[in-house]
């Protein structure tokens, strides 16, 4: 299927992150993660629990930009923080202004913490997420400024730092995947470092390494990210994102 766009490869790659999660809450942050999680709920993981991004748990999967559907439960912020993150039945996919070779993520600020050159969101729930429940990351524009050797302010915690903090930090630590507009990665390289899982069609190991600010480990030949099935394309194009918002986040190339 030659007309499959890069954003559609990203959507199925994200959906695949949630495939084996079973009956847990998915917390996709941002547009493509939301599309991917809703796609997973329609395909590989119908048991996934998803909210409207605020306090309602939705039974169905409305199109992107819409948040109304049958409500199946209540999920105010207090329950997320005290009863879902810590309970562990959750898979969050966060963004990352920086993510490093060791799986540390930064959404707090760029530059020194005391007086940053650019303030971002703040650490938000990233420290707690990463030591309590499965965490993945989405980067819509893979570059050497985003995928780096070492992040400025560690918000989400990678494996090495969790291990240094002790067994309380590693007990539920599970940084699962990094999906970018160039490929899919995990942290299964030497000493839990960044490793290729697949590369989106049109890219190569070399082109991705060129676009990165740190080394990425390759175990032998790296496969291409799988194509969406015909059914998945119908779901993406007709049901979940008929306005093609995905194209704005990841333009075709």
């Amino acid at each position, binding site marked *: 299927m030659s007309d499959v766009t890069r954003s559609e490869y990203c959507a199925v790659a994200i959906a695949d992150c949630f495939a084996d999660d079973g009956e847990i809450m998915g917390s996709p942050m941002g547009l493509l993660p939301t599309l991917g999680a809703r796609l997973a709920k329609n395909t590989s993981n119908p048991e996934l629990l998803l909210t409207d991004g605020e306090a309602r748990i939705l039974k169905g999967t409305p199109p992107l930009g819409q948040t109304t559907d049958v409500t199946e439960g209540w999920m105010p912020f207090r329950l997320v923080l005290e009863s879902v993150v810590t309970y562990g039945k959750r898979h969050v996919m966060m963004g990352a202004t920086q993510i490093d070779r060791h799986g540390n993520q930064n959404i707090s600020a760029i530059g020194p913490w005391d007086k940053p050159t650019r303030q971002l969101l703040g650490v938000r*729930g990233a*420290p707690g997420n*990463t030591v309590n429940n499965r965490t993945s990351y989405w980067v819509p524009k893979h570059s050497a400024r985003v995928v780096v050797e070492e992040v400025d302010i560690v918000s989400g915690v990678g494996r090495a730092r969790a291990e240094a903090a002790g067994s*309380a930090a590693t007990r539920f630590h599970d940084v699962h995947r990094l999906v970018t507009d160039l490929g899919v990665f995990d942290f299964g390289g030497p000493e839990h470092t960044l490793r290729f899982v697949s590369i989106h069609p049109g890219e190569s190991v070399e082109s991705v390494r060129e676009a990165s600010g740190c080394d990425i480990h390759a175990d032998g030949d790296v496969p291409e990210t799988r194509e969406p099935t015909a059914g998945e394309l119908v779901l993406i194009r007709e049901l979940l994102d008929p306005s093609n918002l995905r194209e704005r986040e990841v333009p075709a190339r």
Partner: protein
Amino acid sequence: MRAASKKLTVDDVVGRIESGMTLGIGGWGSRRKPMALVRAILRSDLTDLHVVSYAGPDVGLLLAAGKASRVTFAFATLDSIPLEPLFSRARQEGTAQFREWDEGMFQTGLRAAAQRVPFLPMRAGLGSAVLENDPDLRTVKSPYEDGEELVAVPAIPLDVSLVHMNRADSQGNAQYLGPDPYFDDVFCMAAREAYVSTEQIIDTAGLTVDAPLQSLLINRTMVAGVVETPNGAHFTTCTPTYERDEKFQKAYATAAKTPEDWAEFAERFLSGDEDAYQAAVAAFHEEAADV
């Protein structure tokens, strides 16, 4: 005998706050913030406040006006606009002291204060920069067989908390009608004194006529005073009474980008009292409608 009314004016509430105090502010980001009370603080002589908030424009405004010298935060956002521009400027220019915690730690610190214990243990923070950037934080080892070493999140005791609710009675029983209570009851209990601003003060019997019992988040033991401030969360959400004023928030965020535009915005909207503010907002929308 009847319990005395706790009805106050916005200026009465501000009169109960002193410079140097630790001030908790309820709501979340740009949602159900006690903005009328924040605006009253902007007009006051108060300085040197330590503000504790799931931060939105409340914190941005207090920083820009030089009211806050210290801020405890986990994030600062306008929700529909990801970054809070006045907060970002204060961070980048280093015009105040900051303490950055994880969102869950922040709640845990408030709960510890509410429960009057010195700390509560949790995993959040372990391995992250939070423990490096706040050198006062300590870990604690489980005294049981597991021996796990957890973050001992210290209590965040507050002098005063300010929250905004959809409805309340004159005794301080207060109700949210939107989808999320945020942490407003916890903010009230973590504080020595809490003040509720509300869209409407009604008769107690009216509170449960058309809303479920569980919407009565705050009871009067937690509350020192109540003030009626219609549209008092503006420009943040007060669902379902009103949603966020996105057009105004955009004007706020745009003006905040440069000191010159900000000075003009502050002069137009923040130089008078609450009535003047609401009138200026109405005029802003009339102008926008004419274009």
